């Protein structure tokens, strides 16, 4: 008899468990790759394509058919048009069902009749192609009824346009365009300022708020709920409220400042450099301090009070207790929050878009995606900015995982 050894292959039970796990995960993996991974890959593809917003409509023939009298002769008239003014169509043509009772007296060269099936082929045409094709016919029967039948049968167009998204034309223009000159540095500066100041500001303000509420008193629950309002309410509501509040003509804040004698003329908070960038950053701090507040408060309440009692015995003053006891205990959660918020502030789009639309020096990278793709209608350049964002994020996340894996919890 040999001595018993632990099995070296995977057991049936283990295999079954793994199979179940993959089965449970499969729907998620499928839908996530369809809607996230696929778009991510396509954004790389598009960023090397010279594609504009107008190119999204596919190039195709547009057809209209009518039966009418022209100079005493009945004709079927086809209007054939290229939907695009610029792009060519290869193999343009159409085919149509001709009902009984309609016979062609003569057919041009490009057309052929096969039974009741009329086919006309133009071949390759340029952009902006627009032609009328008149085919004289003799009618056998009630003209009005025949007209209805003729015009009721839709001609089928064929011919394929060159689709810019799938052809083999590539360009580096998108990238040279977005990295070009002063604009890129302005965008980068706005992004860095917004991200760094916004993140640090929200953390510091959240820390203060947490310290205020880190004691027991009546109405604490109410205040805690209240301080979460900015984060919970829809971005669209609070952003528009800020815009209304700071409006230079009818805004309450300006009226208040003028009445108090702080300023003589209204301040255009969201319309002038560099104030606009500062204001959107202030908005970011205002909206997201509740988040750090919530995390920091939770951590504070889990700190053991024995420590503070010992410090009291040793005669530590309140500031000393904060600096030497509380802050070191909070350092872990603060750094995790910093990393997370940094990435999310970097990703932020809605806030700036709603407040200033990216004007007055507030165009960050994310706003630039929208600006390039939809305002300037250059999808390719927008995709190129998106690629830059994604690359930056990958860089962050390497750092993030290196650090976060040491921190428990998140």
């Amino acid at each position: 008899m040999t001595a018993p050894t632990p099995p070296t292959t995977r057991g049936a039970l283990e295999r079954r468990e793994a199979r179940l796990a993959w089965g449970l995960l499969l729907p998620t993996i499928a839908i996530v790759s369809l809607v996230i991974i696929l778009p991510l890959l396509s954004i790389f593809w598009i960023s090397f394509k010279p594609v504009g917003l107008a190119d999204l409509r596919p190039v195709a023939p547009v057809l209209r058919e009518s039966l009418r009298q022209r100079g005493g002769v009945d004709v079927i008239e086809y209007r054939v048009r290229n939907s695009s003014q610029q792009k060519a169509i290869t193999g343009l043509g159409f085919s149509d069902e001709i009902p009984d009772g309609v016979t062609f007296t003569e057919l041009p060269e490009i057309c052929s009749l096969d039974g009741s099936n009329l086919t006309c082929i133009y071949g390759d045409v340029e952009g902006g192609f627009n032609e009328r094709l008149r085919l004289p016919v003799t009618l056998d029967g009630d003209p009005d009824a025949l007209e209805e039948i003729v015009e009721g049968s839709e001609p089928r167009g064929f011919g394929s346009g060159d689709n810019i998204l799938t052809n083999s034309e590539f360009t580096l223009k998108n990238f040279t365009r977005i990295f070009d000159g002063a604009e890129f540095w302005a965008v980068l500066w706005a992004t860095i300022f917004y991200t760094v100041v916004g993140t640090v500001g929200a953390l510091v303000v959240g820390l203060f708020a947490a310290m205020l509420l880190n004691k027991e008193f009546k109405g604490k629950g109410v205040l805690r709920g209240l301080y979460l309002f900015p984060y919970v309410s829809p971005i669209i509501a609070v952003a528009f409220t800020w815009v209304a509040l700071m409006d230079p003509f009818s805004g309450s804040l300006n009226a208040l400042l003028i009445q108090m004698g702080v300023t003589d003329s209204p301040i255009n908070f969201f319309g002038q450099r560099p104030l606009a960038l500062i204001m959107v950053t202030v908005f970011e701090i205002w909206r997201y301090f509740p988040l750090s507040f919530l995390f920091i408060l939770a951590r504070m309440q889990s700190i053991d009070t024995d420590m503070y009692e010992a410090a009291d015995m040793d005669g530590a003053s309140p500031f000393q207790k904060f600096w030497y006891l509380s802050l070191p205990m909070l350092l872990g959660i603060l750094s995790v929050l910093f990393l997370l918020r940094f990435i999310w502030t970097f990703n932020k789009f809605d806030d700036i878009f709603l407040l200033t639309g990216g004007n007055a020096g507030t165009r960050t990278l994310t706003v630039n995606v929208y600006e390039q793709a939809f305002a300037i209608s250059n999808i390719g350049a927008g995709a190129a900015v998106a690629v830059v964002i994604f690359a930056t994020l990958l860089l962050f996340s390497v750092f993030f995982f290196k650090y976060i894996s040491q921190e428990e919890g998140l």
Partner: protein
Amino acid sequence: MSLLRQGVFTAGLIGLFWAFVIAITVAVTLSFASGLGFRPGSFGCLFLGIGGGLAALFVRDRKLLIGGFALLSVAFLFTPLSALQFGEDVPFLWQLIGVLAFAVFTIWPLERMLVEAHPGAMNRHAFEDAVIRFLTGFGYIVFTAIVLIPFYVMVMTSFKSQQALLKNPLDFSIDLSRGMDLFRSYIELFGQFGFGGYLWTSFYVSVLTVLITLAFSVPGAYAVARLRFKGRAAFSRSILLIYMVPMIVLALPIYIAFSMTGLRNTVPGLILIYPVTTIPVALYMLQGYFRGLPVEVEEAGLMDGLSRLQVILKITLPLSLPAMVSVSLYVFMIAWNEFLLAFMLLDDPSKFTLTRGVAMLNSSEIPRQHLMAGAVIATLPIMALFLGLERFMTKGLTAGSVKG
């Protein structure tokens, strides 16, 4: 440093700062409440503040202190040195209310702040105690103000008329004699602008998003939390990674794909895309919770002959009901508040969600109070949900708010 820690000096300085804080607070509050002109008076604050600080240090009888300070403040009202200055048309009653509010809210907290302070050189403890009490009071006022003012303005503006808004942007008083006319913006939004429909669209889109998200993320989270398989660690990392991808990067290809397949400008297209943005968050939150459940209960179930799926349905899910509520609320909130995709994908006013509908109101042709009324309509349901289920909501926020 030693000068700063002299009781007299500390008390005077704190009194000065506090008087300014209260004067500004009272002036802003009364301006917003009445629309009349109030502003803090520098010299009055200077004298009354320093005086109040010193008085609080020396006079330990609370009634005498508050009464005396109030009398003095009212007396100052008749000199140019009043702590509050008034516009020309402010009635005397309002002036009196303002000054009395200033007096009480200045001296009463000052007395509390300086409770451990004393004349002469103070030790570090007494000094810092006074400073911290001052900062605490200051903090409450500032935080409450910055949070409340925008919401106050939002609600009150929605009740105003265009003329009243342009005449005095500061006047937020409500003219009750207008009766139902007060709600005109709301009536017009629901009548002419079809906000009832938007409300309904937003509601069912959000609910469907929650249901679909749960259907996908519960099995996934269970697998990641409980089952052993190759690539588990890599998978749970890639979840985090995926939900760090910003929406705007995905929105562009989604826009293109939806344009080409005809899903753009349809509500089903929106319902297709929303859950995908929330599944990673939900999966991440739920797997954290599943891990915290005692594994023994499930093993006992397995021993008694239940299959894995039965274990999930009969043991794990009932145990994790609170977490499911939190996750559902959080996902509901994300879907309800979502703006970017709705903005890019929907053009047809009959298919708008609420956020898209409010965005439509932001035009120079539509009066401001309509926009604010729209904002209120979008905010109210989520606020009601939040206040009613705050316990679950806060938990959801802390567990999931890596995203935001």
